[in-house]
């Protein structure tokens, strides 16, 4: 214990306890408090391509794709919010499709191509969606932002691919490009700061349909 840190926990542990509080809206406290059973972990090797680089990991089978990225590959851009698929902070792109990395096991992804926020662009060469989020202030605290950006990139791709949504009036036609369409398609990404309108501006900008 040192003077700078009187309660003797590091930043990471503090963040972890913060997650527990955030998750308590959806996860009963009693479930979290349960002691880990003394069962034997099983390990397995898995190889996947992450942001263009082949990576082989030897993991406890319980490791989610999210934890593999954050804890084993040190790609901490992808965030853990609720850890139950409800908030979208963990959204990454796997084999061209956005998914919740918290609800997928790493060992279920042999040979997968995974793109995280770190792989979309680099600080000196940002992805257009990353630049647009900065330009339009598409965030406040920034915690949900990596998931929002991965989701936004995939959303525009899904529209180009002609995948319909809940608000598409004509199922047989090409989904029209509209704010309603984008909002519905982005509903799996929650922003506690409420930056939704600026996220929308950023997406419209990238799609070339500035509002």
């Amino acid at each position, binding site marked *: 214990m040192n003077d700078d840190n009187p309660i003797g926990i590091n930043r990471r542990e503090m963040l972890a306890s913060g997650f527990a509080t955030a998750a308590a809206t959806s996860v009963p406290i009693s479930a979290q408090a349960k002691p880990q059973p003394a069962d034997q972990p099983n390990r397995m090797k898995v190889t996947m391509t992450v942001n263009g680089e082949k990576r082989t990991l030897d993991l406890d089978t319980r490791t989610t794709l999210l934890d593999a990225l954050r804890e084993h590959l040190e790609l901490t851009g992808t965030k853990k919010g609720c850890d139950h698929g409800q908030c979208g902070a963990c959204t990454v792109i796997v084999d061209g499709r956005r998914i*919740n990395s918290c*609800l997928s*096991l790493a060992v279920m992804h042999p040979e997968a191509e995974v793109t995280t926020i770190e792989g979309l662009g680099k600080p000196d060469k940002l992805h257009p969606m990353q630049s647009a989020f900065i330009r339009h202030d598409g965030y406040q605290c920034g915690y949900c932002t990596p998931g929002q950006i991965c*989701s936004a990139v995939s959303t525009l791709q899904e529209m180009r691919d002609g*995948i319909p*949504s809940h608000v598409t009036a004509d199922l047989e036609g090409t989904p029209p490009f509209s704010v309603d369409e984008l909002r519905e398609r982005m509903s*799996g990404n929650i922003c506690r700061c409420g930056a939704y309108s600026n996220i929308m501006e950023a997406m419209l900008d990238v799609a070339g349909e500035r509002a």
Partner: protein
Amino acid sequence: MRAFSFERATSPAEAAAAVARTPGAKFIAGGTNLLDLMKLEIETPTHLVDVNDLGLDKITPTDDGGLRIGALVRNTDLAADNRVRRDYGVLSRALLAGASGQLRNKATTAGNLLQRTRCPYFYDPAMPCNKRKPGSGCAAIGGFNRNLAIMGVSDKCIATHPSDMAVAMRALDATVETVKPDGKTRAIPIADFHRLPGDTPQIETNLQPGECITAVTLPRPIGGKHVYHKVRDRASYAFALISVAAVVRDDGTGRLAFGGLAHKPWRVEAAEAKIGDGAKAVTDIALAGAKTTPQNAFKLPLVERTLGGILTEARA
């Protein structure tokens, strides 16, 4: 999460045999429901059999003019399939009304059918729940039950089945195809697939241990206007309070199935003869014998009015 061993099966029969021979084994497809429940230790499989490599990710025409949907077809791909959009619109609509874009990219046809209830007490291991722990009681009866069942309930469980997709499949008279651990296949009409809670709410379907779903088939298209109307607490990304899957033809005949009301998609075929007489005539039959609580009695008028809107729209 409890520890488990993991294997990837390469054929449906092998997957079924693997689950049958390992006590505590389960299939995993998209993982979006199972992993959620494993994190809470509501599900505690000791072995997982990954079915993602079984080649069951295709949608193909059947000999009698219908469609065979592979068990591993993702909800996104099923909703976006041109044949489904054209001939079975109610199914596309139901899928698109469920979950989020990210979840639908992972969620599979079989996993969606087998997703478990969203009853809040089922999710809370500190509370009694006959479904999670048989014989422990039901905290929802007399508890917070606003979103729980009003049809086919028992004094052991009043949970609902949360799937939107399954409601549309019920209206379309789908059939669930499976392979059993001994390699024999069978076809289960969707009406007989999910069970009412009765005295054994922990048994949710008529699948046998280790039985692996390989496909869901749809009979040839029946025409008509296809509507799926889901009423929920927010405009997107929320489970249904109630939902109505409707196929209504110009001559006034049609199909109606309801979600959010029971432990299975709710359909009473006899009520469909009354479509021409309006929503009240239909719900008088379809919802006869409803058992509501003060918190969820609102579902009765909500279903009638939602159906009323659909029938007016269909006639226009």
